[in-house]
Structure formats: C-alpha cells, structure tokens
C-alpha cells in the first residue's frame, strides 16, 4: 500500500521544493511549467505545494526503511490498542451506556477514520510551534507557495496511514455486525460524514496551530480537542455528562464529526436535546469550521514576528 502511494508522486515532480527565495508574486504562473493544469487558484496552488512537500518527505522517510516499517506497524497498533480497550471492556460487560458492542464499534470506526484522515494530512501542524520559536518559519514565508500547505505537509508522516486503515477495518467490521435498516439516505450519509468529520478535525488542527503564533508551547491544547475528541467520540454520548455533550455540539462542534450522523444511522435519538435534523448538518458545520480556521490562520500570520536573532 505504502509503496504505491509513494512512487507515483515521486516520479512526476522533479524539483522537490519550490525554487529559491525572493520571488515576486507572478512566480505562481511560472510554477505551472511542471505541466499540471495551468489555471491555479489559491487552492490549486496549495494542493500542488502540499503534494510536492509531502512527496519529498516520503522519499526522505524511505531512506530508513526498517524504521518506516516499524512506525507504520506501530501507527496501526496504537489505534488497534485503543480498540483492544473497548474489546476488553466488552469482555466484562454486555453494553456500555445502553449501546451494544457493534454500535460502539461503529462509533469508533466513524470517528477513528475521520480523525485518521485529518491526522494524516494535517497532523504535522502541531509541530509548527517549534518553527515559530526558532524562526525557521521564515524560510517557509520566503517561498512563493501558500504557507499553510507548506507547514501542513512539513515532515509529512506516511506512517499515520496505519491509523486510517485500522479505523476503517473496524468500521467495515461493525457494518457486518450491525442490524441497521439501510435507506439510501443513510448509505449516502456515512461516507459524507467521514469526509466532513475529517474536515472538521482538520479545521480544529488549523485553528490550534494558529494559536501557536502567539503561544508557541501550547500545542498540547490542540491535542485535547483532536486526540481527546477522538476518544470521546468513540464512546456513546449517553455515558457523558450532558454539559460535556452540549459543549461538543455548540462550542467545539466535534459532535458533528461522527456522533450525530452516526446516531441517526443507528436509529437512535440525538443526545442532549439536539434536534434530529442536526444529523445532516455536518457539511455546513465543516464549512463554518473552515471559515473560522481560515480567519484564525490569517490573524496568526499577520501577527507573526520572527525571532530576530
């Protein structure tokens, strides 16, 4: 799996980094000479940058193959052990908060897959604090490429793919175990949920990274919402305090990552007095989250001052 994903981008792009510093804005059009689609918006530009930087890091990782194999295996296991805990719990009990094993596995799979995708693509953002502190972010700012894409792809870790695979396997397994009345709506809602969930998690990561422009050492706060949120979403909302559930619906909208749509698929009522149509609000929430993250990021960049040493 890893091999195929690595070799494709490596073959295509020759220069791994955008060329030297001090280039004017029209260097963007210059960039199109590599032969991709000529019309670049900011998004296209970002994607291209992201792909190039990520491909470079993948090649660099492949220099230590034993280590890569171990880390990929490990990433798979970390999440698997997460799941072992649930298995161990259900070795002792028949239901948790009124939810069966298959239902908890479904919650685990949806939240885990969404988080895994976000972690794979945006997880490097939490390392940005170091770059702000030591001033190496300056190098990134000099390059004629979107900063967010550069930072997000910085030290791109393909090993995180293990997390996605593991969560996806649990999700598929739970689908076999579950006894759900599938309707076309539910069948469409499931993949949409996973994608929107990943976007919401990604937006949280970007917002958290924006705070690093001011508080370089506060990266761990983001973990509370990303890793902590992922753990929270793996369990049924019935076992948590209602204030906590309301918090992840109305304040940090993590409930839209998987809980609300997943509960709809399972045919259970939404928690904490949330209206039922909220199960379909994930795309909208994801969009709003991206807006907030974008604003936070802009504010962050504007206030950036190098270390100046």
């Amino acid at each position, binding site marked *: 799996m890893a091999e195929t994903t690595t070799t494709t981008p490596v073959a295509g792009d020759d220069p791994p980094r955008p060329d030297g510093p001090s280039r004017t804005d029209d260097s963007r059009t210059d960039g199109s000479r590599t032969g991709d689609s000529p019309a670049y918006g900011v998004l296209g530009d970002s994607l291209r940058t992201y792909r190039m930087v990520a491909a470079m890091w993948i090649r660099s990782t492949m220099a230590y193959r*034993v280590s890569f194999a*171990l880390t990929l295996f*490990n990433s798979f296991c*970390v999440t698997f052990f997460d799941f072992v805990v649930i298995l161990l719990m259900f070795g002792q009990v028949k239901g948790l908060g009124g939810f069966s094993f298959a239902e908890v596995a479904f919650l685990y799979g949806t939240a885990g897959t969404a988080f895994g995708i976000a972690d794979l693509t945006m997880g490097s953002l939490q390392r940005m604090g170091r770059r702000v502190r030591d001033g190496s972010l300056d190098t990134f700012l000099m390059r004629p490429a979107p900063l967010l894409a550069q930072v997000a792809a910085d030290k791109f870790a393909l090993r995180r793919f293990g997390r996605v695979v593991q969560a996806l396997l649990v999700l598929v397994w739970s689908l076999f175990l579950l006894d759900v009345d599938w309707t076309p709506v539910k069948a469409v809602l499931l993949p949409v949920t996973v994608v929107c969930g990943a976007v919401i998690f990604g937006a949280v990561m970007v917002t958290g990274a924006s705070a690093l422009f001011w508080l370089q050492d506060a990266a*761990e706060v983001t973990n509370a919402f990303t890793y902590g949120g992922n753990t929270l979403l793996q369990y049924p909302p019935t076992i948590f305090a209602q204030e906590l559930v309301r918090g992840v619906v109305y304040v940090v909208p993590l409930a839209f990552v998987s809980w609300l749509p997943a509960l709809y698929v399972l045919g259970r009522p939404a928690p904490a007095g949330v209206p039922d149509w909220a199960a379909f609000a994930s795309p909208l929430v994801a969009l709003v989250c991206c807006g907030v993250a974008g604003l936070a990021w802009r504010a962050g960049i504007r206030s950036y001052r190098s270390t100046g040493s």
Partner: protein
Amino acid sequence: MLRLYATVAAGGFRRYATYRVATAAGVFTNSVFGLVLSSTYIALWDERPHLGGYSVDDALAYVWIGQALLTVCGLMGGGFEEELIERIRTGDIAVDLYRPADLQAWWFSANAGRAAFQLLGRGVAPMLIGALVFGFTLPSGPGGWAAFLLAVALGSVVGFALWYLVAMSAFWLLDGQGVMQVAWLAGLFFSGMLLPLNVFPGTLGEVARMLPWASLLQVPADVYLGRYEGRELAGAYAFQACWALVLLAAGRAAQALATRKVVVQGG
C-alpha cells in the same frame, strides 16, 4: 562528583520550569483526557461494580493518577529520549562522551530533575481538579502519601531506564523513530494507562502485571489505594527496584557496547 550530578538535576528541573505555557497546556490536556476517561470508567463500573477489585471511587482515582504520572514516569515517552537520539544521529553524542561524566548518570540526573518538576507542575493540578470534580479515593493520611511518593520515584526510575535503553538503539539504527514508537506503544498498553492491569483478563493480565511497565502506573496506583500492607508493600517496592536495576544494567551494557563498537556519525 555527586555535586556535578545534583547540578545537572537542578538544571533539568529549571529547564522544564521555564516553559510555563507548555505546562499549563499539558495540565489542560491531561484534565480533558481525565474527564473523558472518567466518564467511560463510570459507565464501565456502573455495569460491573467492583471490577478488578476497585470501587468506582478507586477507579476514578486511578484515572487521575494516570494523568498525573503520564510525564513523571514516562508512560508515553520519557521526555528526553528524542533529544538523546537526535544527538546520536547527528554525532553530537561524541561531545557528550568526551565529558568527564558518565553518559547514563548524566541523563539520569537531568531526567530526575525533569520528573521532579513535572510531578509538581503537571501532576498536582490534574489530581486536584479530578478530586474536586469526582471526589475520588484519597490515601489514608500522610503515611499513605509518603508510600505513594516512594512508589512514584521508583516508577520514574524504571521509566528512565526503559527509555534510555530505547535511545541506545539509535546507535545501531540511527533513526530511532521506529523503536521509540514501539516502546511508546508497549508503554501505553502495558502500563495500564488505557485500562487498569487488574481488569485485563486471565493470562494477559498476569503477564502484564509482571512486566516492567507495571511499575510505572499500576504499582504506584495500588500503593496509593492502600492495596498493599506491610510485607506486600515491601514486595511491591522490590518489584519496581528489581526492574529498575535490571533495566539500568541493560542500558549500561548497551552503552558500553555502543561506545566500543559503533562509529559515531558526523562530519
């Protein structure tokens, strides 16, 4: 010589004390995780009271002890091995080996200072928050606290010894990421961070309770909960001390082998 190591330890303490925002961020994250885990434990113990011999209040105390000791005992990374591995990879380790101090003792002292700070900075606050929110079991009197602190100190030594051994592997593998993460994984699972080891079923539980990682959280937590008395308490300490000695000796052996056989990186 002892003064040197005391200075190094004090330096380790001060170094981590400098990063106040990071400490506050850590306390926040530990508390959020404590909150989430507490809810799952309450649900679990609700279904099965006295699971693993713990009452709900004991289980909740366990959760918050885990959050408090996370960095102190190196449950998910010792906090120093990344730096040591980087020094090995870049070849800076050669400078360390020139110093008129023992490599392992140097890092041991620095780590002791770090652990002491993190016990105060990142241990006390989550415990307080957890105790206020959930009102879990507290040790019986100052004697109970003292016994707990000794177990934590021993646990942190075992934690250091484990991570030092991990860092030594970088002499051969250069990129320590893989081994580090496997160790991270083992620590996460076998320390009882995810679920108390006495809830693990059958043989898995028995094996897990014999492994060195049990010294990091399970033993200190059981000492805290007053599950050991007299002789048994001494036995629990002996268990930790044995693993500490064995692992420190292994670390020394690896270090000796590495410094004799391995060509240092660098240019």
